[in-house]
């Protein structure tokens, strides 16, 4: 069952097409790795999934609901982390999460749980603007995870984290579907990380979806096309390179 789908999703800015006829199918309770080089359209797609950007054409369906009529109902089910950590620097970590908690109508205990989940409990009284980059990233993640939403959309969640932090977040994301019956859409440039945590993969280049399916299906397709299969990074680079060559050497 697909909890999140896009139907010919397209976004154009003047004569530039950021996302073109994208058809994503994300299964319930899975971790979906969304890959693509810089400027491929990943963040634009994620913004459309959150209703931050209106698509030029096509539609997003989340748990049977669509934008813009079901916006509030959809956003109640989604925890998100887009582009960079988003918070109020003049408030403490705890106060930031309390604002989100009140909007979502969650119990008070959810703030402590979220802080605990990302390892920020001892820094909860510190102003968010005084957090280190990694701590801000964790606060952003806590804002997405608070209340255990059924769908998580995470754009580069491990940016700015040290190797220990990356490992912790990866383990956390991996455990979410089993622990909370949660569906996760995660984009990352760290391909080995995605390889370790994602069960399904979508590869985007120049706004077009080059591949969508399981890791196993990706290996089979790579084998058939003669791409290297040693690891996801090799396969990804070969796939992007072949697509760029096909489109006339454009990067």
């Amino acid at each position, binding site marked *: 069952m697909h909890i999140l789908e896009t139907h010919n999703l397209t976004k154009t800015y003047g004569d530039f097409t950021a996302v073109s006829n994208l058809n994503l199918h994300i299964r319930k309770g899975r971790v979906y790795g969304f890959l693509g080089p810089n400027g491929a359209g990943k963040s634009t797609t994620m*913004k459309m999934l*959150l*209703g*931050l*950007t*209106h698509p030029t054409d096509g539609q997003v369906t989340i748990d049977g609901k669509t934008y*813009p009529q079901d*916006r*509030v*109902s959809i*956003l*109640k089910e*989604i925890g*998100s982390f*887009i*582009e*960079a*950590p*988003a*918070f*109020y*620097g*003049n*408030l403490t970590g705890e*106060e930031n999460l309390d*604002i*989100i908690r*009140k*909007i*979502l109508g969650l119990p008070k205990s959810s703030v402590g749980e979220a802080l605990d989940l990302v390892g920020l409990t001892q820094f909860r009284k510190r*102003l*968010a*603007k005084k957090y280190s980059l990694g701590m801000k990233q964790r606060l952003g993640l806590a*804002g997405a995870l608070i209340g255990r939403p059924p769908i998580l959309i995470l754009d580069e969640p491990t940016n700015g984290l040290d190797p220990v932090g990356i490992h912790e977040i990866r383990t956390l994301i991996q455990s979410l579907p089993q622990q909370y019956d949660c569906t996760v859409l995660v984009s990352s440039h760290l391909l080995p990380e995605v390889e370790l945590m994602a069960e399904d993969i979508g590869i985007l280049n120049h706004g077009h979806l080059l591949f969508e399916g399981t890791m196993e299906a990706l290996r089979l397709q790579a084998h058939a096309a003669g791409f290297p299969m040693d690891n996801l990074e090799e396969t990804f680079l070969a796939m992007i390179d072949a697509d760029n060559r096909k489109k006339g050497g454009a990067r």
Partner: protein
Amino acid sequence: MTFILETKKLKRTGYLPAFLGAGIISCAFPVVNMLARSETFTSLPGNPFEILMDANWQMMAMLNILITICGACIMYHTEYADNGALKMDTLPVKPIRLFFCKFLITAEILAAIILFQIIVLTGCAVYWFPDSAFDFLTILKTAGFEWLVSLPTVTLMLLISSMCKNMWISLGAGVILVFTFSIFPQDNFVLRLLPFSAPYQTLSMADENVHIQLFCMVCVLQTAVLYLGETLYVKARRYLA
């Protein structure tokens, strides 16, 4: 609920101290003015409260407009500085509701400041014109009128601030508007109705020209139109993003 959350967001931003400071300075102005040159005003014929309004309100209204500009800039700088606004956009809350609550907060604080300003002016009138009679209903009406004619300025400044991620642009736009409208001729009725110009009007000035109701209606209409402008901007932002 949203109103309380919007109030919480202003914690440690300097918003309340800024309004408090501006309120104290504007309330001190007529007192200092009377202490320095009371003979100039006590010798004038007419209603003492109106004399004091005519002598002081221009400066007090200017301070009210300037603090409104600063307040709107602080509010939206807090939203944009660390992407708080982006987080709000991904939560199940209507962006126009956030704008409305910011408007309510500013309007409420401005109401308190204007009320204190009018109380101080009344106090000055009672102290320096001891033999005069005062119509306290008219004084209250003055406070209400000055608050109402300030609302379009509040809404326009919040609209400008919501559009500018860079606080310096909204601050600059506000300051330019203040000085642009202050050089417009005050005898032109249409120009007097505009935001940034209307707050300088006093009840007695409007009363002389039998324009009180018209002033009030136009200001309410302007506020509603500017609010609608923000609604359209919020929608357009999604298409342009």
